[in-house]
Protein backbone atom coordinates (compact mmCIF):
# COMPACT_ATOMS: atom_id res chain seq x y z
CA UNK A 1 0.00 0.00 0.00
CA UNK A 2 2.90 2.32 0.76
CA UNK A 3 4.19 1.61 -2.75
CA UNK A 4 0.85 2.75 -4.18
CA UNK A 5 0.97 5.89 -2.05
CA UNK A 6 4.44 6.59 -3.38
CA UNK A 7 2.89 6.52 -6.83
CA UNK A 8 0.36 9.12 -5.74
CA UNK A 9 -2.60 6.73 -5.50
CA UNK A 10 -5.30 8.60 -3.56
CA UNK A 11 -7.48 5.48 -3.22
CA UNK A 12 -4.63 3.72 -1.41
CA UNK A 13 -4.35 6.71 0.90
CA UNK A 14 -8.09 6.54 1.62
CA UNK A 15 -7.81 2.82 2.44
CA UNK A 16 -4.88 3.44 4.71
CA UNK A 17 -6.77 6.24 6.43
CA UNK A 18 -9.77 4.02 7.04
CA UNK A 19 -7.54 1.40 8.62
CA UNK A 20 -5.33 3.57 10.81
CA UNK A 21 -7.21 6.84 11.47
CA UNK A 22 -8.99 5.46 14.61
CA UNK A 23 -5.60 4.67 16.16
CA UNK A 24 -4.00 8.01 15.19
CA UNK A 25 -7.07 9.95 16.34
CA UNK A 26 -7.26 8.04 19.63
CA UNK A 27 -3.62 8.81 20.43
CA UNK A 28 -4.01 12.48 19.51
CA UNK A 29 -7.26 12.80 21.47
CA UNK A 30 -5.73 11.11 24.52
CA UNK A 31 -2.87 13.62 24.50
CA UNK A 32 -4.81 16.74 23.56
CA UNK A 33 -8.23 15.94 25.08
CA UNK A 34 -9.81 18.19 22.48
CA UNK A 35 -11.44 16.96 19.28
CA UNK A 36 -10.58 19.91 17.03
CA UNK A 37 -6.88 19.78 17.92
CA UNK A 38 -6.89 15.98 17.58
CA UNK A 39 -8.39 16.28 14.09
CA UNK A 40 -5.63 18.70 13.15
CA UNK A 41 -2.97 16.19 14.25
CA UNK A 42 -4.82 13.42 12.38
CA UNK A 43 -4.76 15.52 9.23
CA UNK A 44 -1.10 16.45 9.68
CA UNK A 45 0.08 12.88 10.24
CA UNK A 46 -1.62 11.55 7.11
CA UNK A 47 -0.56 14.52 5.01
CA UNK A 48 3.02 13.94 6.15
CA UNK A 49 2.74 10.36 4.95
CA UNK A 50 1.23 11.49 1.66
CA UNK A 51 3.92 14.10 1.06
CA UNK A 52 6.87 12.03 2.25
CA UNK A 53 5.99 8.34 2.01
CA UNK A 54 9.72 7.55 1.88
CA UNK A 55 9.97 8.61 5.53
CA UNK A 56 8.25 5.37 6.44
CA UNK A 57 10.56 2.44 5.92
CA UNK A 58 9.01 -1.02 6.32
CA UNK A 59 12.31 -2.25 7.73
CA UNK A 60 11.91 0.20 10.59
CA UNK A 61 8.72 -1.29 12.03
CA UNK A 62 5.07 -1.75 11.16
CA UNK A 63 3.00 1.09 9.81
CA UNK A 64 0.51 1.02 12.71
CA UNK A 65 3.14 1.42 15.46
CA UNK A 66 4.97 4.01 13.37
CA UNK A 67 1.83 6.09 12.85
CA UNK A 68 0.97 5.76 16.56
CA UNK A 69 4.40 7.06 17.59
CA UNK A 70 4.31 9.87 15.02
CA UNK A 71 0.81 10.85 16.18
CA UNK A 72 2.04 10.98 19.77
CA UNK A 73 5.07 13.14 18.82
CA UNK A 74 2.93 15.59 16.83
CA UNK A 75 0.22 15.73 19.50
CA UNK A 76 2.80 16.56 22.17
CA UNK A 77 4.21 19.27 19.86
CA UNK A 78 0.67 20.69 19.51
CA UNK A 79 0.10 20.45 23.26
CA UNK A 80 3.32 22.33 23.94
CA UNK A 81 2.57 24.76 21.07
CA UNK A 82 6.01 24.23 19.61
CA UNK A 83 7.50 23.40 16.25
CA UNK A 84 7.86 19.67 15.46
CA UNK A 85 10.74 18.35 17.54
CA UNK A 86 11.16 14.97 15.89
CA UNK A 87 12.23 14.34 12.33
CA UNK A 88 10.07 11.56 10.91
CA UNK A 89 13.09 10.05 9.19
CA UNK A 90 14.69 9.56 12.57
CA UNK A 91 11.86 7.47 14.03
CA UNK A 92 12.97 3.84 13.97
CA UNK A 93 10.80 1.33 15.76
CA UNK A 94 11.82 -2.15 16.81
CA UNK A 95 9.12 -4.46 18.18
CA UNK A 96 9.81 -8.12 18.67
CA UNK A 97 6.13 -9.09 18.92
CA UNK A 98 4.21 -9.88 15.76
CA UNK A 99 1.66 -7.08 15.26
CA UNK A 100 0.86 -7.64 11.59
CA UNK A 101 -2.35 -9.59 12.00
CA UNK A 102 -5.41 -8.07 13.71
CA UNK A 103 -5.65 -11.00 16.14
CA UNK A 104 -1.97 -10.77 17.11
CA UNK A 105 -2.32 -7.04 17.57
CA UNK A 106 -5.37 -7.43 19.81
CA UNK A 107 -3.56 -10.01 21.96
CA UNK A 108 -0.49 -7.78 22.27
CA UNK A 109 -2.60 -4.78 23.27
CA UNK A 110 -4.39 -6.86 25.90
CA UNK A 111 -1.05 -7.93 27.36
CA UNK A 112 0.23 -4.37 27.49
CA UNK A 113 -2.98 -3.15 29.14
CA UNK A 114 -2.70 -5.90 31.71
CA UNK A 115 0.88 -4.90 32.36
CA UNK A 116 -0.16 -1.27 32.87
CA UNK A 117 -2.81 -2.34 35.38
CA UNK A 118 -0.34 -4.54 37.20
CA UNK A 119 2.40 -1.94 37.67
CA UNK A 120 2.52 0.29 40.76
CA UNK A 121 0.37 3.42 40.48
CA UNK A 122 3.25 5.86 40.84
CA UNK A 123 5.18 4.04 38.10
CA UNK A 124 2.25 4.04 35.67
CA UNK A 125 1.45 7.64 36.54
CA UNK A 126 5.05 8.77 35.86
CA UNK A 127 5.02 6.99 32.48
CA UNK A 128 1.65 8.46 31.49
CA UNK A 129 2.72 11.97 32.50
CA UNK A 130 5.77 11.67 30.27
CA UNK A 131 4.08 9.87 27.39
CA UNK A 132 0.58 11.37 27.20
CA UNK A 133 1.17 14.75 28.78
CA UNK A 134 4.62 15.42 27.32
CA UNK A 135 6.06 16.44 30.68
CA UNK A 136 9.79 16.50 31.26
CA UNK A 137 11.24 14.45 34.11
CA UNK A 138 11.92 17.71 35.98
CA UNK A 139 8.26 18.72 35.69
CA UNK A 140 7.12 15.29 36.81
CA UNK A 141 9.44 15.42 39.81
CA UNK A 142 8.12 18.88 40.69
CA UNK A 143 4.51 17.76 40.39
CA UNK A 144 4.85 14.48 42.27
CA UNK A 145 7.33 15.80 44.82
CA UNK A 146 9.67 12.89 44.15
CA UNK A 147 13.43 13.07 43.51
CA UNK A 148 14.57 13.31 39.89
CA UNK A 149 16.45 10.01 40.11
CA UNK A 150 13.34 8.21 41.32
CA UNK A 151 11.28 9.61 38.44
CA UNK A 152 13.90 8.51 35.90
CA UNK A 153 14.04 5.00 37.36
CA UNK A 154 10.25 4.65 37.45
CA UNK A 155 9.78 5.73 33.83
CA UNK A 156 12.37 3.33 32.49
CA UNK A 157 11.07 0.50 34.68
CA UNK A 158 7.57 1.09 33.34
CA UNK A 159 8.73 0.88 29.73
CA UNK A 160 10.69 -2.30 30.49
CA UNK A 161 7.58 -3.80 32.08
CA UNK A 162 5.63 -3.20 28.86
CA UNK A 163 8.38 -4.87 26.86
CA UNK A 164 8.46 -7.87 29.20
CA UNK A 165 4.70 -8.24 28.98
CA UNK A 166 5.00 -9.16 25.32
CA UNK A 167 7.88 -11.52 25.91
CA UNK A 168 5.75 -13.97 27.90
Amino acid at each position, binding site marked *: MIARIRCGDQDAMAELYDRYSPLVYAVALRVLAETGAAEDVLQEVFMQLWRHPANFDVRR*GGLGPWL*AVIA*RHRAIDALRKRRPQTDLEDVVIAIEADLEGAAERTRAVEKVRASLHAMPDNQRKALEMAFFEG*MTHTEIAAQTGEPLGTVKTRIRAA*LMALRRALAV
Partner: protein
Amino acid sequence: MTGHEQFAEDLALYALGSLEGEAVNSVERHLEECAACRQELARLEGDMALLALTTSGPAPPQRARQRLLKALGHEPRSLRTVFMRRRWWTLAPVFASLVLAVFAILLWRENARQRDRMEALRADAARNQATFEEAKHLLALLTDPSAMHVTLVAAQSKPQPAGKAIYMPGNGALVFMASNLAPLAPAKTYELWLVPMHGDKPMPAATFKPDPQGNAMVMMPPMTAGVEARTFAVTIEPEGGSATPTMPMVLVGS
Protein backbone atom coordinates in the same frame (compact mmCIF):
# COMPACT_ATOMS: atom_id res chain seq x y z
CA MET B 1 20.32 -5.89 25.40
CA THR B 2 19.57 -2.58 27.06
CA GLY B 3 22.56 -0.54 25.88
CA HIS B 4 25.09 0.98 28.19
CA GLU B 5 23.74 1.03 31.70
CA GLN B 6 24.96 4.54 32.45
CA PHE B 7 22.76 5.82 29.62
CA ALA B 8 19.83 3.46 30.16
CA GLU B 9 17.58 5.80 32.13
CA ASP B 10 18.50 8.90 30.16
CA LEU B 11 17.88 7.00 26.91
CA ALA B 12 14.34 6.09 28.03
CA LEU B 13 13.65 9.73 28.87
CA TYR B 14 15.24 10.80 25.58
CA ALA B 15 12.91 8.51 23.62
CA LEU B 16 9.95 10.07 25.41
CA GLY B 17 11.25 13.59 24.81
CA SER B 18 11.33 14.10 28.57
CA LEU B 19 15.06 14.61 28.92
CA GLU B 20 16.35 18.17 29.30
CA GLY B 21 19.50 20.25 29.26
CA GLU B 22 23.03 19.01 28.70
CA ALA B 23 21.92 15.39 29.19
CA VAL B 24 20.22 15.57 25.75
CA ASN B 25 23.48 16.54 24.05
CA SER B 26 25.34 13.88 25.98
CA VAL B 27 22.91 11.14 24.86
CA GLU B 28 22.96 12.33 21.26
CA ARG B 29 26.77 12.32 21.19
CA HIS B 30 26.77 8.80 22.59
CA LEU B 31 24.14 7.62 20.09
CA GLU B 32 26.32 8.78 17.21
CA GLU B 33 29.00 6.29 18.15
CA CYS B 34 27.09 3.48 19.83
CA ALA B 35 25.11 1.06 17.67
CA ALA B 36 23.89 -0.88 20.73
CA CYS B 37 22.25 2.24 22.18
CA ARG B 38 20.75 3.14 18.79
CA GLN B 39 19.17 -0.31 18.75
CA GLU B 40 17.96 0.18 22.30
CA LEU B 41 16.43 3.54 21.30
CA ALA B 42 14.53 1.75 18.51
CA ARG B 43 13.25 -0.77 21.04
CA LEU B 44 12.18 2.04 23.38
CA GLU B 45 10.26 3.59 20.46
CA GLY B 46 8.68 0.15 20.07
CA ASP B 47 7.71 0.17 23.76
CA MET B 48 6.17 3.60 23.28
CA ALA B 49 4.29 2.36 20.23
CA LEU B 50 2.83 -0.44 22.34
CA LEU B 51 1.68 2.12 24.88
CA ALA B 52 0.16 4.21 22.09
CA LEU B 53 -1.63 1.14 20.71
CA THR B 54 -3.47 0.73 24.03
CA THR B 55 -5.36 3.97 23.51
CA SER B 56 -8.92 3.72 22.34
CA GLY B 57 -11.75 6.12 21.91
CA PRO B 58 -14.35 7.38 19.49
CA ALA B 59 -13.69 7.13 15.77
CA PRO B 60 -12.68 10.35 14.07
CA PRO B 61 -15.63 12.29 12.62
CA GLN B 62 -16.51 11.82 8.96
CA ARG B 63 -15.58 15.45 8.25
CA ALA B 64 -11.95 14.62 9.08
CA ARG B 65 -11.91 12.02 6.28
CA GLN B 66 -13.47 14.49 3.82
CA ARG B 67 -10.97 17.15 4.87
CA LEU B 68 -8.06 14.81 4.22
CA LEU B 69 -9.33 13.63 0.83
CA LYS B 70 -9.93 17.24 -0.21
CA ALA B 71 -6.40 18.16 0.86
CA LEU B 72 -4.97 15.21 -1.10
CA GLY B 73 -6.72 16.52 -4.19
CA HIS B 74 -5.01 19.87 -3.78
CA GLU B 75 -1.55 18.46 -3.14
CA PRO B 76 0.64 17.59 -6.09
CA ARG B 77 1.86 14.02 -6.34
CA SER B 78 5.26 13.35 -4.89
CA LEU B 79 8.13 14.59 -7.06
CA ARG B 80 9.65 11.16 -7.25
CA THR B 81 6.49 9.79 -8.86
CA VAL B 82 6.30 12.68 -11.25
CA PHE B 83 9.82 12.09 -12.49
CA MET B 84 9.46 8.32 -12.67
CA ARG B 85 6.25 8.30 -14.64
CA ARG B 86 6.56 11.26 -16.94
CA ARG B 87 8.16 11.08 -20.32
CA TRP B 88 11.03 13.45 -20.83
CA TRP B 89 9.12 15.66 -23.21
CA THR B 90 6.45 16.34 -20.63
CA LEU B 91 9.20 18.01 -18.64
CA ALA B 92 9.91 20.42 -21.50
CA PRO B 93 7.91 23.23 -19.85
CA VAL B 94 10.02 22.76 -16.71
CA PHE B 95 13.25 23.06 -18.69
CA ALA B 96 11.82 25.99 -20.64
CA SER B 97 10.97 27.68 -17.37
CA LEU B 98 14.51 27.10 -16.11
CA VAL B 99 16.00 28.53 -19.31
CA LEU B 100 13.66 31.51 -19.08
CA ALA B 101 14.61 32.00 -15.45
CA VAL B 102 18.34 32.01 -16.34
CA PHE B 103 17.65 34.37 -19.26
CA ALA B 104 15.65 36.64 -16.96
CA ILE B 105 18.52 36.75 -14.47
CA LEU B 106 20.99 37.65 -17.25
CA LEU B 107 18.65 40.34 -18.55
CA TRP B 108 18.21 41.69 -15.07
CA ARG B 109 21.97 41.93 -14.58
CA GLU B 110 22.44 43.63 -17.96
CA ASN B 111 19.63 46.00 -17.10
CA ALA B 112 21.31 46.82 -13.80
CA ARG B 113 24.58 47.52 -15.64
CA GLN B 114 22.83 49.79 -18.14
CA ARG B 115 21.06 51.55 -15.30
CA ASP B 116 24.41 52.23 -13.60
CA ARG B 117 25.85 53.51 -16.88
CA MET B 118 22.82 55.74 -17.38
CA GLU B 119 23.21 57.12 -13.87
CA ALA B 120 26.88 57.94 -14.57
CA LEU B 121 25.93 59.69 -17.84
CA ARG B 122 23.18 61.61 -16.09
CA ALA B 123 25.65 62.75 -13.42
CA ASP B 124 28.13 63.83 -16.15
CA ALA B 125 25.39 65.70 -17.97
CA ALA B 126 24.40 67.48 -14.77
CA ARG B 127 28.01 68.51 -14.16
CA ASN B 128 28.38 69.72 -17.76
CA GLN B 129 25.13 71.61 -17.53
CA ALA B 130 26.36 73.38 -14.38
CA THR B 131 29.64 74.33 -16.09
CA PHE B 132 27.75 75.51 -19.14
CA GLU B 133 25.41 77.65 -17.03
CA GLU B 134 28.39 79.20 -15.30
CA ALA B 135 30.08 79.96 -18.64
CA LYS B 136 26.84 81.39 -20.00
CA HIS B 137 26.51 83.74 -17.07
CA LEU B 138 30.13 84.79 -17.42
CA LEU B 139 29.67 85.39 -21.14
CA ALA B 140 26.45 87.34 -20.55
CA LEU B 141 28.27 89.51 -18.02
CA LEU B 142 31.14 90.20 -20.39
CA THR B 143 28.99 90.91 -23.46
CA ASP B 144 25.95 92.62 -21.97
CA PRO B 145 26.02 96.28 -23.11
CA SER B 146 24.26 97.31 -19.90
CA ALA B 147 27.03 95.86 -17.68
CA MET B 148 29.30 98.41 -16.00
CA HIS B 149 32.93 98.40 -17.15
CA VAL B 150 35.19 100.26 -14.77
CA THR B 151 38.92 100.57 -15.36
CA LEU B 152 40.87 101.31 -12.24
CA VAL B 153 44.06 103.35 -12.58
CA ALA B 154 46.39 105.09 -10.13
CA ALA B 155 44.51 107.75 -8.18
CA GLN B 156 44.43 111.26 -9.68
CA SER B 157 45.72 110.07 -13.06
CA LYS B 158 43.75 110.40 -16.25
CA PRO B 159 42.32 107.12 -17.55
CA GLN B 160 44.36 105.85 -20.45
CA PRO B 161 43.39 103.46 -23.24
CA ALA B 162 44.09 99.93 -22.03
CA GLY B 163 43.54 96.40 -23.23
CA LYS B 164 43.91 92.90 -21.93
CA ALA B 165 44.35 89.82 -24.13
CA ILE B 166 43.81 86.33 -22.79
CA TYR B 167 45.23 83.77 -25.17
CA MET B 168 45.79 79.99 -25.26
CA PRO B 169 48.27 79.10 -28.02
CA GLY B 170 47.36 75.38 -27.90
CA ASN B 171 43.87 75.85 -29.33
CA GLY B 172 44.08 79.48 -30.49
CA ALA B 173 41.41 80.66 -28.07
CA LEU B 174 41.50 84.41 -27.58
CA VAL B 175 39.57 86.96 -25.59
CA PHE B 176 40.46 90.63 -25.77
CA MET B 177 39.00 93.46 -23.68
CA ALA B 178 39.78 97.13 -24.14
CA SER B 179 38.72 100.30 -22.39
CA ASN B 180 39.03 104.08 -22.73
CA LEU B 181 39.50 103.82 -26.46
CA ALA B 182 39.11 107.02 -28.41
CA PRO B 183 36.17 107.24 -30.77
CA LEU B 184 37.04 106.25 -34.35
CA ALA B 185 36.85 108.49 -37.37
CA PRO B 186 34.32 107.40 -39.99
CA ALA B 187 35.39 104.41 -42.15
CA LYS B 188 38.00 103.44 -39.62
CA THR B 189 38.26 100.41 -37.34
CA TYR B 190 40.49 99.15 -34.61
CA GLU B 191 42.41 95.98 -35.49
CA LEU B 192 44.00 93.54 -33.06
CA TRP B 193 47.29 91.94 -34.10
CA LEU B 194 49.18 88.94 -32.87
CA VAL B 195 52.95 89.04 -33.34
CA PRO B 196 54.23 85.47 -33.33
CA MET B 197 57.17 84.33 -31.26
CA HIS B 198 58.88 82.97 -34.38
CA GLY B 199 58.81 85.30 -37.41
CA ASP B 200 58.13 89.00 -37.26
CA LYS B 201 55.12 89.34 -39.52
CA PRO B 202 52.08 90.34 -37.42
CA MET B 203 48.95 88.25 -37.92
CA PRO B 204 45.57 90.05 -38.02
CA ALA B 205 43.37 88.68 -35.22
CA ALA B 206 40.16 90.72 -35.37
CA THR B 207 38.70 94.13 -36.14
CA PHE B 208 36.42 95.83 -33.62
CA LYS B 209 34.77 99.13 -32.70
CA PRO B 210 34.34 100.42 -29.16
CA ASP B 211 31.03 101.43 -27.63
CA PRO B 212 30.28 105.11 -26.78
CA GLN B 213 32.08 104.64 -23.43
CA GLY B 214 35.24 103.45 -25.21
CA ASN B 215 34.88 99.77 -24.19
CA ALA B 216 35.33 96.89 -26.62
CA MET B 217 35.53 93.17 -26.48
CA VAL B 218 36.67 90.50 -28.91
CA MET B 219 35.75 86.91 -28.09
CA MET B 220 37.10 83.84 -29.72
CA PRO B 221 37.96 85.16 -33.18
CA PRO B 222 39.03 82.50 -35.72
CA MET B 223 42.73 81.86 -35.03
CA THR B 224 45.30 79.32 -36.14
CA ALA B 225 45.99 76.89 -33.31
CA GLY B 226 49.54 76.30 -32.08
CA VAL B 227 50.95 79.81 -32.70
CA GLU B 228 53.03 81.12 -29.78
CA ALA B 229 52.46 84.87 -29.28
CA ARG B 230 55.22 87.30 -28.44
CA THR B 231 53.18 90.51 -28.58
CA PHE B 232 49.61 91.72 -29.02
CA ALA B 233 48.97 95.13 -30.53
CA VAL B 234 46.04 97.32 -31.64
CA THR B 235 46.13 99.76 -34.55
CA ILE B 236 43.62 101.90 -36.38
CA GLU B 237 42.92 100.63 -39.88
CA PRO B 238 40.56 101.38 -42.75
CA GLU B 239 37.13 99.78 -42.49
CA GLY B 240 37.43 96.05 -43.14
CA GLY B 241 40.95 95.78 -41.72
CA SER B 242 44.39 95.57 -43.30
CA ALA B 243 46.85 92.83 -44.13
CA THR B 244 49.64 94.68 -42.33
CA PRO B 245 49.35 97.06 -39.37
CA THR B 246 49.35 100.80 -39.93
CA MET B 247 51.50 102.70 -37.48
CA PRO B 248 51.28 104.05 -34.86
CA MET B 249 50.18 101.35 -32.42
CA VAL B 250 47.33 102.41 -30.12
CA LEU B 251 47.97 99.59 -27.64
CA VAL B 252 50.78 97.10 -27.33
CA GLY B 253 51.66 94.39 -24.81
CA SER B 254 54.07 91.47 -24.61
